Every structure is written in structure tokens, then in C-alpha cells.
């Protein structure tokens, strides 16, 4: 995650979906060699292609969808950024970090978490300096010392430069300062994970959201065993019905249906959609994915249901405060759901073997967006 848009990053994440596609070179009907090249290419791709669908475990105890094999976790993350490491901010990197922290293994790769921690440390240092400046300023003002006050200008200038550098700061210089400075105390919680001096038990898994699993099952990229049906994999419609039921009554304003309609709307327009509890919104939209740019949009979903309590302007104001502080645009996403009658007509006709029924259902919903932005009259006046 260190070098954004580096050649390595761009070439690593080429696939938007965890689906294998056979790509053939151009075939010219009058040129037999091109046929031969195409045939060889086809055969070699068929041999090397990953033909097994990713197996996702549905944990009924905590209603979560888990991927535990390292290979599958990496594959799902690298092809479209699906899921979230259960012990990481996004990409599953816990094992790497734990190996560095507990076993002292040296790893050249810097994880996103380490960069975040380093930047927080820099921000802490900046704030200390700023407090010093404010204190001096107060003191000089009380003393009415004009000269000294003027001298503070250069300090202020330096500080603002220091602040600007933080958000661009790359990987920490030495292998994370905090680990080298703090005396190493081993926690009993960590001891339990050690297999031998070089290996740790990996307790991290990739967790997929209900929206992601429904989308990936519809795309035929993963399979999930249905324990209520002899462990046969869920079909799209079976999974849809199961999830809808899990989130409440079967009705047009079912939480899962609303969220999935919005998720699918942005997915089909090419966005990388992730959930966004951290910034008090429902989804964040990445143009390509987390390693490339920060997510520029935070989406808040609003339904036309009378069941949903009225959200007043203070509510939107609070969300905006959070969203604007992380330099995102706040998008209000209005979703209109069909009447119960229209809905039941399609819902009751769903055939468990026809995944397109899901799309028919989604077509009953309409979505409109609006950007919410604070307007400050004094700053906007020319």
C-alpha cells in the first residue's frame, strides 16, 4: 500500500472481479498460424486457469461469511477488493504485522496499518509543537510584546509545512519506531499463538459482507454451503431469501434489500463499494480500490419508508462534519421502493434456479443521488 499508483500496484490489481476469463489473441481466418496460436493459447489457459470456485464458510453462530485459506483471501482481495481482514483495517495483513511484533521477523513490506500509525505519531508531534506556539502567543500577547509576536510568524509557517508533510509521509524510516523503543513485554495472549520461533497460528480470516456474498454468488465466483439443505451450495435466490429473512420481514423496505439495491447500483456503475461505519455513512465509493486513491465519496442511504424515523438536519450536519473532515463528498442516496403489491408479485414468482430474478426484483427500486455540502456565506462571497 506504500507506493500509490506505482507500476507494481497497477499491474497487481488488474481484475475487477474474482472471475477467470480466457483471453485469446486475434484470429485471422486466412492465416492458419493465427489459428494455431489461438488454439495453443486456449489450451494453456484452460490448464492454468483457476477452476475451483472460492469456498466461503457461513458461520451461523455469528452470521458472518468467512474465507480462511490464505490463497483465497489474497485472491478475493486482489481481484476487486472484496472482504475485510478480520484483524486489519482492510487488506488482511494481521499475520505479517504479528510476525514482526511477536517474533521480530523482518519483512520488507510495509502494511497500511503501520503507515497509519506512523502518521498518527507525526500528527501527535505536530500537535505538541502547535500547543507550544499557542502558549507562547498567549504569553506575548499578555506582555504586549509586538516584536516577539512577529517572530512567531516563521514558527507558524514551519508548522503549517510540517502539517502538510504528514499526509504525504510514506513508510516509517526505521522498522516502526514504537517497537524498537518500547521494552518488549510478551503478552500471554500472544504466547498462545506461537507455534515455533518462526511460525504463528494465523487467526485472521477474510470477512465478506452480506451484500458482497450475494453479489459474488450471483456472479458465480464463490460458493457457500447451505447447512439447511444437505450442504448443497446456496443458489442466488436461496441466499437472497435467507439473507432477507435474517434482516427482518419480507417487505420492500427490508434492510438487506435496500442496502443491496444501493450496493449493486454502484457496483454495476464500476465503483468499488465498501461499507463505511467509520465515517458514519453506509458506503464509501472508491474509483478503483483502496490501494489507488482514497475514497472520495461517502454514501448515506435514505428510504421513503414511513417506518424509518425522520432524520433532522442536525443528523445530516453531524455526518457532514465527520465526512468533510476526511475530505470526502457526502452523497445522499434516495431509494424509492415499490409498493407491497408490486413487490410480492415479483418475490412470489422467484425461481430458485434463476438468478436473474434478483435483477427483476432490483429493477423495482429507483435510486437518485444528491450531494450535501455546507455553504458558508462569508467565505463564498467574492
Amino acid at each position: 500500500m506504500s507506493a500509490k499508483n506505482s507500476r507494481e500496484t497497477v499491474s497487481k490489481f488488474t481484475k475487477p472481479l474474482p472471475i477467470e476469463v480466457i483471453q485469446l489473441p486475434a484470429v485471422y481466418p486466412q492465416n492458419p498460424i493465427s489459428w494455431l496460436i489461438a488454439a495453443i493459447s486456449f489450451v494453456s489457459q484452460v490448464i492454468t486457469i483457476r477452476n475451483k470456485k472460492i469456498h466461503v464458510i457461513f458461520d451461523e453462530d455469528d452470521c458472518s461469511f468467512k474465507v480462511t485459506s490464505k490463497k483465497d483471501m489474497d485472491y478475493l482481495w486482489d481481484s476487486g477488493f472484496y472482504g475485510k481482514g478480520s484483524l486489519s483495517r482492510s487488506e488482511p495483513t494481521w499475520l505479517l504485522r504479528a510476525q514482526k511484533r511477536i517474533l521480530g521477523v523482518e519483512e520488507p513490506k510495509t502494511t497500511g496499518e503501520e503507515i497509519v500509525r506512523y502518521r498518527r505519531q507525526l500528527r501527535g508531534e505536530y500537535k505538541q509543537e502547535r500547543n507550544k506556539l499557542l502558549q507562547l502567543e498567549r504569553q506575548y500577547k499578555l506582555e504586549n510584546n509586538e516584536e516577539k509576536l512577529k517572530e512567531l510568524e516563521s514558527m507558524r509557517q514551519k508548522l503549517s509545512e510540517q502539517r502538510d508533510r504528514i499526509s504525504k509521509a510514506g513508510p516509517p524510516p526505521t522498522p516502526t519506531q514504537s517497537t524498537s523503543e518500547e521494552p518488549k513485554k510478551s503478552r500471554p495472549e500472544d504466547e498462545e499463538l506461537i507455534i515455533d520461533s518462526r511460525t504463528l497460528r494465523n487467526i485472521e480470516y477474510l470477512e465478506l459482507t452480506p451484500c458482497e456474498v450475494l453479489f459474488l454468488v450471483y456472479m458465480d465466483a464463490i460458493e457457500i454451503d447451505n447447512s439447511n439443505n444437505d450442504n448443497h451450495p446456496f443458489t442466488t435466490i436461496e441466499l437472497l431469501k435467507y439473507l432477507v429473512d435474517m434482516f427482518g420481514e419480507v417487505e420492500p423496505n427490508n434492510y438487506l434489500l435496500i442496502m443491496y439495491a444501493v450496493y449493486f447500483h454502484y457496483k454495476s456503475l464500476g465503483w468499488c463499494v465498501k461499507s463505511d461505519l467509520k465515517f458514519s455513512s453506509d458506503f464509501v465509493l472508491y474509483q478503483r480500490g483502496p490501494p489507488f486513491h482514497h475514497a472520495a465519496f461517502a454514501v448515506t442511504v435514505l428510504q421513503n419508508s414511513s417506518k424509518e424515523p425522520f432524520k433532522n438536519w442536525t443528523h445530516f450536519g453531524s455526518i457532514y462534519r465527520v465526512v468533510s473532515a476526511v475530505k470526502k463528498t457526502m452523497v445522499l442516496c434516495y431509494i424509492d421502493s415499490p409498493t407491497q403489491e408490486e413487490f410480492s408479485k415479483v418475490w412470489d414468482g422467484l425461481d430458485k434456479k434463476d438468478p436473474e430474478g434478483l435483477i427483476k426484483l432490483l429493477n423495482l427500486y429507483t435510486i437518485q443521488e444528491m450531494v450535501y455540502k455546507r455553504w458558508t456565506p462569508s467565505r463564498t462571497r467574492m
Partner: protein
Amino acid sequence: MITNRATCIKVRTNLVHYNLWSDVSLVEFEEETLHEKLMLLKGKNPKSEEENSNGYDYVLPVLKQTKLTLQDIDLIFQHLTEMEGYEVGKIVLGIMDFDGTVVYYNIHPGVQKPKNS
């Protein structure tokens, strides 16, 4: 839907192996006015700056759509203080999303002077 216990276990794992808390244990109590058994996590935050409450913090794991009223929170403070034998001045809400993300918010009984940041 996801049970209290399952949420609790997930938040516990997050505290221990992501935020590196130590000595995390479960605190449970019955409360008639609340329908379910209440579960909180008690543990030591390595970054905690507060000196009181024996160095322990209390985390209430909840789901994204859990409804919690001020009365509920007040009851929790009362119970905790009673059980622990000292005034608990802060609980941390551990709010969990459907992708396993947990975000933490501090709750104090009453107005709290903001930290100078």
C-alpha cells in the same frame, strides 16, 4: 440475527489481537428492564491515559443497528459501579458492522471536558 454473545466474542478478538488490549474478561449481569442479559468486556488498554478505575476500561459490544437509550446507558453505569465497587466513569461502545469492522466511542456519565487536541 447475530446474538449478543457472538458480537461479544468478535469484539473481544478485535480488542485483544488488533488493539492489543490485555487481560480482557467478560462481565455479565441480569437487568429486568432490559430484555437480554447484558455483556460487557473489561480489559486493559495499553494506551489508556486514565489513572482511575484500576487501569481497566469497560467495553459494551453492540451491533450497528442496536438501539440504546440514555436510560439503558444509565442503568449500565449503575450496575457496573455496583459490581466493581468503584465509580466507573467511562464506558466504551464497541459498534460492529457487518464486515466485522469495530469502531469505538467513549461515553461518560455527564459532561466531559474535551481533550485538548
